[in-house]
């Protein structure tokens, strides 16, 4: 398995109230996974734990056979090589589009940087916006730049946190399709978090549900996987 998450636990406060309780998940390379759940179900926390922005209290995460978190290891977020598209995009307001994308291109030569910026901008159909600042872009355009920025350093995994929540409803459907095309084109393993079933169904190869951080659900997820019966959950949602 490309990504393995085992017995992950996490809480924001020191006492009780586990936000994540024995969460398990396995993902194959190139898969597009959607984590579906209501707000407060802990779905965004899973992304933060994967990316290293939070440290789990218990459990193991490995990506591409390399352990990034366990009792002895903790790889800092900047060393994990994971791309992330934030809910409100978090484009640096003091940098242009090109500078934003270039930001993650460490160890590239000057000409390589230029080439890569052009490549990813072409990928998201934003070639003509290089010199713009984030506040000069519409919401949909900002989102595409955020995606381009996350993809530019060629990460091993792409995380998207509620990628459509800041978009108008009609724009959402259009962008959803585009996003799917772009991700498919790059072939990158992706996980995106959403509260919208339609989003999940339109993009994901596989859907995972989370509810109220309830422990049964995670445990059953593990059991489900162990009895190789994962698709029950998807069926439940589709019906």
């Amino acid at each position, binding site marked *: 398995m490309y990504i393995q998450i085992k017995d992950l636990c996490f809480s924001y406060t*020191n006492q009780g109230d586990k936000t994540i309780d024995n969460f398990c998940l396995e993902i194959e390379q190139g898969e597009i996974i959607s984590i579906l759940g209501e707000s407060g179900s802990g779905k965004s926390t899973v992304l933060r734990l994967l*990316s290293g*922005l939070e*440290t*789990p*209290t*218990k459990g193991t995460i490995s990506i591409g056979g390399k352990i990034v978190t366990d*009792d002895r290891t*903790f790889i*800092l*977020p*900047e*060393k994990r*090589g*994971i*791309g*992330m598209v*934030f809910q*409100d995009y*978090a*484009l*640096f*307001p*003091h940098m242009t589009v090109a500078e934003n994308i270039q*930001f*993650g291109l*460490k160890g590239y030569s000057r000409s390589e940087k230029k080439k890569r910026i052009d490549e990813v901008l072409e990928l998201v159909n934003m070639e003509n916006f290089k010199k713009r600042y984030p506040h000069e872009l519409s919401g949909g355009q900002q989102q595409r730049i955020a995606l381009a*920025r*996350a993809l530019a*350093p060629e990460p091993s995994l792409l995380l998207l946190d509620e990628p459509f929540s800041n978009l108008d409803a009609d724009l959402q459907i259009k962008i959803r399709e585009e996003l799917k095309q772009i991700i498919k084109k790059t072939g990158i393993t992706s996980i995106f978090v959403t509260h919208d079933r339609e989003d999940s169904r339109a993009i994901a190869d596989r859907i995972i549900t989370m509810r109220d951080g309830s422990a049964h659900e995670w445990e059953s997820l593990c059991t489900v996987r162990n009895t190789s019966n994962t698709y029950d959950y998807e069926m439940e949602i589709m019906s």
Partner: protein
Amino acid sequence: MKFYRKLPGYMNIWTVLSMVIVLLILMPNLKILINFFTQTTDNWEHIKEHILPLLLKNTSIIIVATGVLTILIGTSLAWLISAYDFPLKVFFKWGLILPLAIPPYIAAYTYNGILNYTGVIQTTLRNDYGIRVDQKYFDIMNIPGSIFIFTLFLFPYVYTITRAFLANQSSSLIENARLLGRNAFEIFFRVVLPISRGAIIGGASLVLLEVLNDYGVVKYFGVPTFSTAIFQTWFSMGDLNAAIKLSATLMFIVFTILIFEKVLRGRKKYSYTTAKVKPLTPMKLTGWKAWTVFGYSLLIFSLGFFIPFIQLLDWMFLTFEKIASPVFTQLIMNSLLVAFTGAFMIVIFAVIIANFTRMHKSWLSKSASRITILGYSIPGAVIAVGISSVFIDIDNLLFTFYESFGMEASLFLSTSLFMLISAYIIRFLAVGYNSIESGFDKVGNKFTEASRMLGMGMTKTFFKVDVRLIKGAIFSGFILAFIDILKELPLTLILRPFNFDTLSTKAFQYASDEQIHEASLASIIIIVISGIAIYLFHQVLEKEPK
């Protein structure tokens, strides 16, 4: 929580530097607290028996009276300005902050200069009307006089905090009370006071901490309080140990006030959590009501700013030619030097600690943040005692080191500007820290997280992203710390190197030597610079949506 799991996230230069800074801040304070329990000296027994009761009595009288009066004046003005329209209201809204620009010690000798035998009031009465007054009615160099000065020049702390609260938080409650047919007095006592309790207490506790910090007013007026007693024991009796014990007692009073504030505010925050608040719409006052409110505001503004300022200007023109000399230029340069260096270091330290505490939400970062702002509550006299005893210890430790360099001075650090700057940092770090912390709060962590996801470490992220986004907050933190250092008196007076004078110490010395007129130029410079800064700062605050 398994700490070792979190450890790798903590292993960076920011954590290390923050811990070092926090320990440095803690050292002088710990020194004082520990020394409280060491063996007592004869001096201390004497002080405890004969002087301490008087100090406690004076301090309590001044604190209670100033607390009550500033609450009355500050809250009433805050309410009148936010709830009503009357002549020149917009002017008063800003003008009533200006008393903060006049440090109380400057106000003290200015008022004494106005009221004493040779002052403008008595000479006018004598020369133009032939009236000779009884001196006791014009003597303010006593406890009521100190209360008068503290009240007039510190009430803006209560006024600004309460007004900001009323303007932003209270509209629906007050408008409802109006609709329910309550009159103005009922609304003030039954709605305004209870809901703004937290703001009022917050402002009042700032006032009390300033009163405890004061050295200039009580020293000039000859009122024995803790600050003056600490210095007297230290310098006249030469008993650092007894001075430390007095400092520790004063520290306990400070902690009592801080705890009292926490308890009084309680868990009830009395504020809405909704993001959108409708500002209170002022009602227009007419007739005698309008003029009464106008008169009240004018009276406080005149006493708290206009009268002393005009008097100082007048004295300045009288003495300008005599005072303005290369020596005076040197004073300005000295003031700018210490204020700039101090504010610069404060901003750097504050940024380091604020960046650490926002990254890690844990008991460690919470206590770091608490300790950082601790210094602002600790009176200057206490910090002075603590820091010089720490520096003398360090000098003793380094004695052999000095010798090997063939240096003669055995007290090298404790007689240098380095000690004074360190004291400023401890005392005013909170000022820079609060500003920078709120800057970080406003920006949030998302840009930092985005940068780290793009492969930049904490330090690179800091220079490429964070600093650019909070430069406004860094700048205002710098300005606030700069002004505070410029006005500062007790620390500068005690810890400055030999023959090193700043605007504030020189002004105070002139005044103490009965040369009040000569003190005016330095005072005016301090007041004008602080006034401009305060005005700009509050205007920025007003414009920014919170």
